[in-house]
């Protein structure tokens, strides 16, 4: 299927890294042992986990829809990728600059490791968006149904 889309290897690599990141994140948050959560700042951690659960629900939905959009409705994949990049950047800016005093991620388990990989995932999403936005449109080929 990929040769019909004529996307570069960087795109597929970026997409794989993004999927790997989100699957790891889903696994980490779903299997976090309750005993490992620190006892200080319990309210902040509880509220952070609540927010993370809502965000992961959205991510799980998008991860399952994205391949369908990419392969069946390629015309809209560009806008969906840009929207996802904007969402990832908005969440990152929110966590780092806006909600600094309100939320706190637990320092236990794999969570700090996963969170440290977030800029890499954002870079991958940016690469995907740039490729889909600025790639040359081939003449005489039909991509959409």
């Amino acid at each position, binding site marked *: 299927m990929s040769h019909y889309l004529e996307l570069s290897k960087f795109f597929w690599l970026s997409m794989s890294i993004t999927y790997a990141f989100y699957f790891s994140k889903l696994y980490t948050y779903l299997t976090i042992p309750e005993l490992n959560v620190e006892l200080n700042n319990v309210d902040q951690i509880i509220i952070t986990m609540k927010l993370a659960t809502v965000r992961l629900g959205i991510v799980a939905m998008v991860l399952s829809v994205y391949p369908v959009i990419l392969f069946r409705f390629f015309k809209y994949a560009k*806008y969906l990728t840009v929207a996802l990049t904007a969402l990832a950047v908005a969440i990152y800016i929110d966590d780092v600059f806006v909600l600094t005093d309100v939320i706190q991620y637990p320092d236990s388990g794999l969570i700090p490791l996963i969170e440290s990989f977030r800029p890499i995932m954002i870079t991958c999403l940016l690469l995907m968006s740039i490729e889909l936005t600025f790639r040359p449109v081939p003449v005489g080929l039909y991509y959409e149904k």
Partner: protein
Amino acid sequence: MKNKNINDLELSTILGTASDEFSNDKNYVVQSFTFRLTLSFINLYALILIALFFMVKGNLVLGINNNFLETGFLSVLNSRASLIFLLLISLNISAYFNLGFKYVCLTMMVYMINSAIDNAVLFSSFMHLTDRPYISVFNVTRPLFIISLFWVFIIHKDKKKITKNLYY
């Protein structure tokens, strides 16, 4: 003064061609009235929202319950107001130059949805709708703002439609 060396046919050809195909004045896209109206609404809504944030920050308006501002909500309001202001400036610049408007609009839409989800999850437990009625009005009407952004995203015209010149 008319140049005697140019006849009427040549003159009309020069004027006609210059006014239609080589005119820089027509080299831009005219957006629809609905687009301009919706964009004005978006600007007005965002500016009132930002002004309200700064009024709450400066304690210029009284609320029934002031305690929730001490729970970190004020710093969140402050940062959100600055970010929305930056996004609004970007939206207007991209609309003026007709460059990447859809992407900026999409980014703003996503940011507003994300901030609405954040507010609903983080602050819904200790903030009631009647605590600050004017903030609640904006929270309740936020879907209207998001719908307006989506509508503007759909009806925005990127490129000038190529029309055949029927006269030549």
